[in-house]
């Protein structure tokens, strides 16, 4: 199917470490008239074939910016990638030409966005928008592309797909629109799907349907997925691993079970305690005090220290490095072990 013109030849199928996609020590700034905002400050994470990584964080934590950096669709200016690597199948995308990166988009890595209404072009029928990808990127004829577009819409379970080809985005319901988005992203059989808050704009019942659809598609099409979200509830059933972001850093990284069972960063702990749970009765919900930091003036030391219940002098003075806790877990906290073992809180 995906006879894209330039199929990147895998130089070595399992390059160093064997990760399909790897972000290494990425630094991104936004330079505006008001000053420089350090949006990404040394993010590293990786994704293996067929797995789902959830990237969790509040808005402004840099999770979407990292994803856009991977896709190569950051607006520059104001965004500037200061340093770091984004390795896909062993090659650093950041050293590639714009044309090479364009070839990767859609065929290798595809992305779906939060608000499908604004992410779809309002003046073209959805069928046209799906088949545009096929015609432009896979060189399909008009008729073939149309046929394939119907198949894709059926794949994402849009009822009466053939009849809806000529409809415009505003004629679809929110959930159906997001399905159109997904169909469009799947058009070229990407190996990685980045889903940027795919359910945030939707009703709760529809959210579950879309998440189920994504999980099924990922399994059936054997893709890897990066799921960006601020909603811990969404993550649990779908993800294999979770990376928690705060102020442009990964503060904790673990498999889903261990992270839920014993979070090793005070921020993760705070997030977990702020979701209502059925098994704890009568306990009042706690919240994380304070506000996310201003990215033009990130606090000294650990950026979370002004809001942290475990704060010590060392947190104000020294930037914590990733502490390896075994089982591939890391936590960027001076007191990671104490936090992890502190179940009482």
């Amino acid at each position, binding site marked *: 199917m995906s006879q894209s013109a330039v199929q990147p030849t895998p130089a070595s199928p399992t390059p160093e470490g064997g990760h399909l996609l790897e972000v290494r020590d990425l630094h991104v700034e936004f330079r505006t008239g008001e000053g420089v905002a350090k949006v990404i400050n040394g993010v590293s994470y990786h994704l293996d074939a067929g797995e789902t990584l959830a990237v969790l964080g509040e808005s*402004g934590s840099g999770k979407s910016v990292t994803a856009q950096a991977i896709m190569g669709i950051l607006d520059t200016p104001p965004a500037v990638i200061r340093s770091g690597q984004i390795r896909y199948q062993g090659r650093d995308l950041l050293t590639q030409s714009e044309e090479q990166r364009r070839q990767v988009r859609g065929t290798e890595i595809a992305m779906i966005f939060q608000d499908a209404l604004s992410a779809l072009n309002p003046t073209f029928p959805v069928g046209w928008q799906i088949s545009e990808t096929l015609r432009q990127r896979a060189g399909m004829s008009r008729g073939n592309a149309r046929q394939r577009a119907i198949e894709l819409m059926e794949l994402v379970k849009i009822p009466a797909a053939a009849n809806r080809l000529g409809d415009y985005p505003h004629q679809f319901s929110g959930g159906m629109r997001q399905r159109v988005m997904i169909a469009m992203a799947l058009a070229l059989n990407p190996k990685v799907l980045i889903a940027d808050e795919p359910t945030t704009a939707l009703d709760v019942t529809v959210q579950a349907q879309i998440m189920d659809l994504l999980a099924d598609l990922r399994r059936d099409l054997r893709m890897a997925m990066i799921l960006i979200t601020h909603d811990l509830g969404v993550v649990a059933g779908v993800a294999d691993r979770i990376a928690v972001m705060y102020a442009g850093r990964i503060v904790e990284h673990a498999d889903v079970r261990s992270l839920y069972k014993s979070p090793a960063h005070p921020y993760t702990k705070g997030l977990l305690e702020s979701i209502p749970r059925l098994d704890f009765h009568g306990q009042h919900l706690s919240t994380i005090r304070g506000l996310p930091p201003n990215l033009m*003036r990130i606090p000294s030391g650990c950026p979370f220290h002004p809001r942290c219940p475990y704060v010590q002098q060392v947190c104000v003075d020294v930037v914590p490095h990733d502490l390896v806790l075994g089982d591939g877990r890391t936590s960027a906290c001076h007191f990671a072990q104490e936090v992890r073992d502190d179940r009482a809180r």
Partner: protein
Amino acid sequence: MSDFETVAASEDPNARRGPSGEPNAPNQVGGTSVTPGRPRSLAGDAWRDLRRKPIFWISSALVLVVTAMAAVPALFTAADPADCVLSRQHAGPSGGAIFGYDFQGCDTYARAVYGARASLLVGALSALLTGLIALTVGMLAGYFGRWIDAVLSRVIDIVLGIPLLLAAIVLLKRVASDSATVRIAAVIFVLAVLGWTTTARVVRSSVITAKEQDYVAAARMLGASNSRIMWRHILPNTLAPAIVVLTIALGSFIAAEATLSFLGIGLKEPTISWGIDINSGRVHMRESATPLIVPSTFLALTVLAFIMLGDAIRDAFDPKLR
């Protein structure tokens, strides 16, 4: 017919939508939290922005000069603009008459200086009257909403759809009097009656915004009357945007007055108006171009000054599209 409606038309209201709601959009990064220690007001930011703009200073200076000219023309010329001697027809520069004499043998420069008064008077009073109409209509429509808003918004649509020049011609043809005061009043009235709609729309939308604010809800809960809420709480919020629009409108009104006088249906002799002088200068441009060029330059610079001033202030207050 597209003669002097263009400035208002270029500001498409739909062109001012905010940026998309993407939480990580770059222009919102700095705003994710409150900056501690340094409170910043919109007016303060705008002023800091304006101070650096040469256009702001140039247009302000021009506005001041032309205002002084309108108030005390004798400061700028010693000559009497009514002192016209046919023997000096199209004579070159001499003595105080730095631009020479026109077809009637009047001092071209002196007439241009004295022309500022009628222009500014008409411009300022039309803008004032426009402001009153627009504030009333916009306030009623925005504050009370519902059917009042529906009716008034339709009225605005209809008036906005009337071609300004055609309507002004039809209206002004009804004014037979040649008395200077009556004609000035008529031109002011016609311009205000036809030109209040853009400002009213601006007022209406800022009233609607102000109405949603918490302190207005608080005032209402404390039992403040509608009129008190409108006067004390909402009016101050609508003044700044209204004044910006009115500054631009003032420039357009000056241009409109000159155009009507140029056509012979606005102000008439013996009132000195740039529009009248441009028309007579135009007729005799082959003999001498200065009587055309001098009032044209005065008019163009004055209109430009007001419009650029308003444009610069608005840009400073609305940085979205910079």
